[in-house]
């Protein structure tokens, strides 16, 4: 019988998730297993994700990859998986439970804190900055916002975060939000966009308002890379989504074989800018 590993993710339309998917598919090819990948429309749809998880379990998988939207809500289903002896690999963010054999994740909070450090350096540790975040309630949205804001508050007393607004990761909405922020704060020195859609929105908004501010982004994608190359964006944090996908499937395969796994597989995050973009190690974790 074929080894089948469904991955239930937090989303599927964003480039980030598409990159995770491609990593998983790569691993599936390497280890000769079958994977499927799906996730709900928005990161608010906790119950839809649970429906997906139960459908995945109904397919009698050999193992399961799961990126929980809520750290607790899926626990009954995970228990069911455990009872059916289906090993669960958590990815992207963990669950409040020891059922997953391992968690392949990036520390979003630490990554965003790195973004704060870079931003502070770029504006001379002084002045007003704003955050255009992608989501107010989802784990990634909250972690990236808090990681950035907390580090600023803790380490850079002269940097003031004037506003945090949310554009749902929608390019157009984030553009409009950025423009309003620029309008409201004429002395603004920097803006942090917390995912690809938000970061591109910030770039567009700044471009349309013809202002000079320091932009720090998150994730990659062609437009962000172009913006960095053109000097519009100072730099961005990237996780290793392809790596997350790959490692998740790899860990699942190992778990099936009964191999011992570390509690956490850190897939890492990186700061990239004009200077190191073409560095092969960095280029490998960027996606278009």
């Amino acid at each position: 019988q074929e080894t089948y590993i469904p991955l239930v993710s937090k989303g599927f339309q964003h480039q980030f998730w598409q990159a995770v998917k491609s990593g998983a598919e790569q691993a599936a090819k390497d280890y000769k297993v079958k994977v499927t990948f799906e996730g709900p429309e928005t990161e608010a749809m906790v119950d839809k994700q649970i429906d997906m998880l139960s459908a995945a379990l109904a397919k009698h998988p050999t193992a399961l990859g799961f990126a929980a939207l809520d750290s607790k809500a899926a626990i009954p289903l995970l228990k069911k998986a455990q009872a059916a002896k289906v090993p669960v690999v958590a990815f992207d963010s963990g669950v409040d439970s020891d059922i997953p054999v391992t968690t392949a994740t990036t520390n979003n909070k630490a990554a965003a804190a790195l973004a704060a450090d870079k931003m502070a350096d770029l504006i001379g540790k002084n002045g007003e900055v704003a955050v255009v975040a992608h989501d107010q309630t989802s784990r990634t949205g909250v972690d990236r916002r808090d990681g950035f804001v907390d580090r600023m508050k803790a380490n850079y007393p002269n940097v003031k975060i004037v506003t945090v607004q949310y554009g749902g990761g929608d390019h157009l909405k984030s553009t409009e939000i950025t423009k309003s922020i620029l309008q409201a704060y004429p002395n603004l020195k920097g803006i942090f966009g917390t995912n690809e859609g938000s970061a591109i929105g910030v770039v567009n908004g700044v471009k349309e308002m013809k202002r000079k501010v320091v932009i720090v982004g998150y994730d990659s994608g062609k437009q962000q890379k172009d913006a960095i190359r053109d000097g519009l964006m100072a730099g961005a944090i990237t996780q290793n989504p392809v790596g997350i996908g790959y490692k998740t499937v790899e860990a699942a395969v190992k778990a099936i074989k009964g191999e011992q796994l570390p509690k956490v597989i850190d897939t890492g995050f990186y700061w990239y800018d004009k200077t190191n973009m073409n560095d092969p190690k960095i280029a490998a974790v960027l996606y278009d």
Partner: protein
Amino acid sequence: MTLPLTPTEAQATAPGLPVLLKDRLFRPATRQKLLAFASLLVLMVFFSVASGNFLQVDNLVSILQATAVNGVLAIACTFVIITGGIDLSVGTLMTFCAVMTGVCLTYLGLPLPVGVLAAIFFGCLSGFTSGVLVAKLKIPPFIATLGMMLLLKGLALVISGTKPIYFNDTPGFSAISQDSLIGQVLPSLPIPNAVLILFLVAAAAGIVLKHSILGRYAFALGSNEEAVRLSGVNVDFWKIVVYTVSGGICGIAGLLIASRLNSAQPALGQGYELDAIAAVVIGGTSLSGGAGTILGTIIGAFIMSVLANGLRILSVAQEWQTALTGVIIILAVYTDILRRRSR
């Protein structure tokens, strides 16, 4: 004014009860009702043949479970839609009620029944507000409920502090939807209570719609509001009642989802109104009001969740799932239209 009428005359036009019953069972209408399940059955048969994993107790239970929330929301919508209105706020109202239950149980530590009542109370209150906006202030239902949708979404986030509220300290809470009373009696049928609640709500709503004065006025309002008003009925009052009842039912949905997730997720809810309205319309209720059944709505809700589940079980790529869902919804409604036309 007296009515000069002999009993025999009356009998001629009003047949006795036994005759009525017999004649009703063999009416084509009954056959029609059974045929309404056709689209649903076709879908189920197709998925059963296409995947051995579909027709298994566990999966059927998941489908039932997945239908519960949308089904209850769709029942709430059915009331409003029958009056010729529309309710866009059902999704965020559900969330708002879940959050209020969370506030009562987790933040205030009140006993479980208070939390349950709170969900229904705040549902009714919000429904009442929508009703007043529509009936008294004459704001079109689309705008009134759109406004309420945004307002309730904002309030849910404000009240919860944009964080989920967990019910870990209220042990019995998740049992509301997760335990199985049926399973205790018939261990081979572990149908969770959420499904039981869905069917109870449906039965109650069906009776109210068919046999109560509220139901009668709901249909009448949707059919010809002016005529109802000219008949001396307090149209505004009954409209408000309909929206209030609908809001209360959304409160039940709020309980179900909170209990299923063992938490109140304040950001969830927007977008659910489309699924609910779609279930209602797939079920044959007309958006212009005056016609509709709870049975149809339930079938509509099941069509939607069978479709979602089946496509997932077949591991259809997600973008194709979306596209196919669109096509199949249109086809399901079209076959229903053909069926009605062939009468």
